């Protein structure tokens, strides 16, 4: 083998080495400068329907299972909604909080069902004008019994329950809700269970004073706090957006094309199964215009 051949091979090897090195370099660079982890910002900016809750529960599960996500910030602006969906959200947030820091930023309204899912957070940030509270339950009972021409197998098949039973169920939901909030906020809460049951809403500033929230701060403060709690100095932020309400309900229409005029039609369109009027148990803040028959476990609405 001649000397020139050796030199040629060396040059070729060097070029190949450079090419390989250049290909690997970005990856090494990325590795070296990679953030320590990710803070997931999970939005809830709608009333809590079953579908909205499912998406947020999925987001929270993703946060738990994705190894890069080290902390969660909840961005809450919702008047609440279905009682069952609100409980699902509470359990999902609670479970997430047991695994990683969860910090809430109330960017508007955390009332009723949306306060339920806010309660287990490690820290709750509010602004003076944001709203927290409304710890209460309501049941909207459809009027009328079994219509003519319909045959049912029992007296409660059509109406689903007697009023006394609906009251009992609302009371059970109230006990679970109020008891949970008292337990989750036990370190700072200044209200008794009976006072909380009035279901008032409070301004953010008053909420901090009463212990329903922890401090004044915006969304960025909440993200920084979540990162600090997860001991991240260098982190990414990923936003998991709130489910958008369907076009049909945005137009104020029911799925069958009828305009949603009465409160019952609206709640039916928002929370219920299409075409079936059932007793609806809601953790919802705000007035429903002219309810048919309503059993509420709280005073203020």
């Amino acid at each position, binding site marked *: 083998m001649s000397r020139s051949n050796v030199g040629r091979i060396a040059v070729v090897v060097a070029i190949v080495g450079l090419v390989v090195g250049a290909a690997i370099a970005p990856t090494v660079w990325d590795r070296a400068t990679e953030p320590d982890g990710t803070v997931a910002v999970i939005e809830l900016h709608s009333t809590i329907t079953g579908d909205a809750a499912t998406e947020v529960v999925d987001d929270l599960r993703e946060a*738990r*299972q994705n190894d890069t996500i080290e902390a969660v910030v909840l961005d809450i602006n919702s008047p609440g909604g279905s009682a069952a969906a609100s*409980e699902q959200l*509470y*359990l*999902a947030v*609670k*479970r997430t909080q*047991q*695994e990683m820091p969860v910090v809430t930023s109330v960017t508007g309204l955390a009332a009723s069902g949306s306060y339920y899912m806010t309660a287990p957070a490690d820290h709750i940030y509010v602004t003076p004008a944001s709203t927290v509270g409304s710890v209460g339950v*309501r049941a909207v*009972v459809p*009027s009328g*019994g079994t219509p003519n021409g319909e045959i049912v197998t029992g007296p409660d098949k059509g*109406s689903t329950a*007697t*009023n*006394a039973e609906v*009251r*009992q169920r*609302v*009371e*059970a939901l109230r*006990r*679970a809700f109020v*008891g*949970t909030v008292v*337990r989750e906020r036990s370190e700072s809460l200044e209200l008794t269970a*009976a006072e909380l*049951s*009035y279901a008032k809403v409070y301004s953010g500033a008053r909420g901090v004073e009463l212990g329903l929230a922890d401090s004044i701060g915006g969304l960025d403060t909440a993200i920084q706090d979540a990162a600090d709690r997860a001991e991240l100095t260098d982190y990414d932020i990923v936003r998991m957006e709130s489910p958008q309400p369907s076009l049909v309900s945005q137009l104020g229409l029911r799925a069958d094309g009828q305009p949603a005029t009465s409160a019952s039609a609206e709640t039916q369109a928002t929370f219920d199964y299409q075409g079936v009027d059932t007793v609806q148990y809601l953790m919802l803040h705000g*007035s429903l*215009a*002219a*309810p*048919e*028959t*309503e*059993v*509420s*476990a*709280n*005073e203020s*609405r």
Partner: protein
Amino acid sequence: MNLGKGLGIVGVFVLAVLLVVGATTGVAVLTDTGTETTARPDAPTFENDTLLPEAVADTGAVATAETDTEKTVVVDLSHGNDVSRAEMQPLVDALVRGGHDVMFFTGGSSSIGYSSSSGSSPLNKSLRDADAFVVANPGTAYSGSEVNGIEAFADAGGRVLLLADTPTSGSSSSVPSIVPSIGSGSSVSASGQPTNVAGRFGITFGSGYLYDMTENANNFQYIYGSTAGESRLGTDAEQTVFRAAVPIVTSAESETLLTGDNVRHSSTRKNGTYAVAVRNGNVTAVGDTWFLSPEAATLADNEHLVGNVATFLTDGDKAAGAPQASGSSSSSDVTFPGSGITTPIATPTNETSDTNTTGTPTNETSTATPA
């Protein structure tokens, strides 16, 4: 020879496969930490023994109002009263079983101003044959003549029962959270309180309702009432249940029969003991109508209260003929502006033990409501 070689090759192949699969399994088992570490969220409030409320005892039956003589009880429905026979069926049953007559007075209205030849209003005429008179949630006010007539009726020994709920306005958006959806068949959908009738006897129905956030019948508006002192109305009715009861204020001569203890008033949010049932002579006032309904009449000790109310209505001793027509000493009927206009009066429907339901239509709304 060739066969042995072939088997050897297959054996090496199988060994190689097993080695790879085994190594993969081992590494997978060692590195698998599970998808979720905690099995379930820590939410003990959901599994608390006290989560499910106890139902209020719903046993017993309303006793029959048995007295020596057969009495006539008139229930006023002529003032747009926001109450129906169905809503006081247990009371009607207790009276009818005791052989008494229950009449729902639907005819004539004070605003129309009917004047008979004697100058008396149709209500006062009906009262002459009655022994007891029930007023519940009138939608319109009683005229001066009618109030005078009712006072004369009570003075003559007639029993008067005044019932009122929290006033509602017909189409308001600020309805209380529990509203019985009745009155659709009537021209007056608002319910009110018999203010001027009660005022004549030194009784005032309050505004708002009473509530209790802690000791209640599974809802803050469903409060427990307890007996105050020794009264026949409170006999055996140690714990009664009222819905959104109205507090009653009375003058000194009235006797407080039932109270809500340690409850709050919705208007003032003040804690205290409020009278829910009072009696002044022959007049008893109760700040609730719901306790008479089929849903409520046997809750807790309500059956005793309903029975005692039926007894109160029938154990009086009224002088016949009162209230007298105008010109007499006890009554001073005035002539209405519409005097002389003859308006057809619906005959009061008569309900006796024999004819529980009459064919005569009444003004009462017959819509069955899950009140």
